[in-house]
């Protein structure tokens, strides 16, 4: 990492912001760990997800689909579809971070909502790199530790329904979706997708309704042009 040409005061400000967002975000790995073992994953599988996948919404999606009785394949497909937004983040970050080779391959793992949000607004490559790495690494370390703590705690608790952990999954998805609902097209998309999914629940295998809802995004994207008023990624927690 090169931070040459970066004013020390600017640098420490970026580091402070990155640590703040990183600590706030990383700790909610606890909820993921608890929910994942509640969905029937082993502690090892739960931790492997946080290490390998390392993108919260996709991880919650995989365990959510499994918890609802979906097949591992439909859970995996839903997770991968949700992971496509990281590709868009990468496109925006590539010219700013300006990495190649092994650094790009290593840095890619840290491309998530928060690390993107904390670096896309920077005006220079050194500033963007400091923001990206501070946020990304802090979250990676804490998210994985918190996942382990949550998974062990969740296993010790026993039946997740007693503690309402099955309700926690829906709340987690809603919290991830919430900032996007300020935009009207997003609200219409969300309502239509929810309606399509619920309509399919009685007539298709578990996991299919969620995947099919991606068709709503496709349809509305084609029929309804114009920009989105909401920022994505958004970090205000």
């Amino acid at each position, binding site marked *: 990492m090169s931070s040459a040409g970066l004013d020390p005061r600017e640098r420490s400000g970026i580091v402070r912001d990155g640590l703040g967002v990183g600590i706030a*975000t990383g*700790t909610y790995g606890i*909820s993921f760990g608890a929910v994942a073992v509640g969905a029937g*994953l082993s502690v090892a599988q739960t931790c*492997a*997800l946080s*290490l390998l*996948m390392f*993108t919260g919404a996709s991880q*919650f999606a995989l365990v*959510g689909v499994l918890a*609802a*009785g979906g097949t591992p*394949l439909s859970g*995996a*497909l*839903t997770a*991968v*579809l949700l*992971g*496509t*937004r*990281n*590709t868009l*983040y*990468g*496109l925006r*970050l590539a*010219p700013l971070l300006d990495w190649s080779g092994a650094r*790009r391959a290593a840095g*890619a*793992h840290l491309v998530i909502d928060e690390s993107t949000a904390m670096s896309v607004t920077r005006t220079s490559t050194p500033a963007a790199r400091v923001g990206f790495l501070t946020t990304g690494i802090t979250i990676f370390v804490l998210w994985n530790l918190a996942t382990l703590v949550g998974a062990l705690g969740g296993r010790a608790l026993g039946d997740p*329904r007693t*503690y*309402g*952990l*099955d*309700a926690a*999954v*829906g*709340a987690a*998805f*809603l919290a991830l*979706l919430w900032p996007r609902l300020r935009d009207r097209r997003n609200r219409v*998309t*969300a309502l*239509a997708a*929810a309606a399509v*999914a*619920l309509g399919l629940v*009685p007539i298709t295998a*578990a996991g299919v*309704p*969620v995947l099919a*809802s*991606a068709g709503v*995004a496709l349809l*509305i*994207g084609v029929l309804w042009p114009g920009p989105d008023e909401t920022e994505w990624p958004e970090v205000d*927690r």
Partner: protein
Amino acid sequence: MIWWAVVGAGVACYLLKLAGLSVPPRVLEQPLVERIADLIPVALLAALVAVQVFASGPALVLDARAVGLAAAVLLLMARAPFLVVVFGAALVAAGVRLV
């Protein structure tokens, strides 16, 4: 089987991240592609909320989870942090089941 999903989807998610950093921007930077890619998480997250809360196997039900979701909505409107929203919804649902 779960291990395959964990490893397969994990690797695929990593490759999606790497693709964004590696692919020339012009390939994906078209308004339609960008708009659809932007709407996909909105649709999937909304569908996940609906199915998580209102589905029980192949049946649609209204139970303690719906009360938990209502609590989550209130907490989000009050700008509560993520963990408070998630565990708040869980506590409320657990409380409803005790009654």
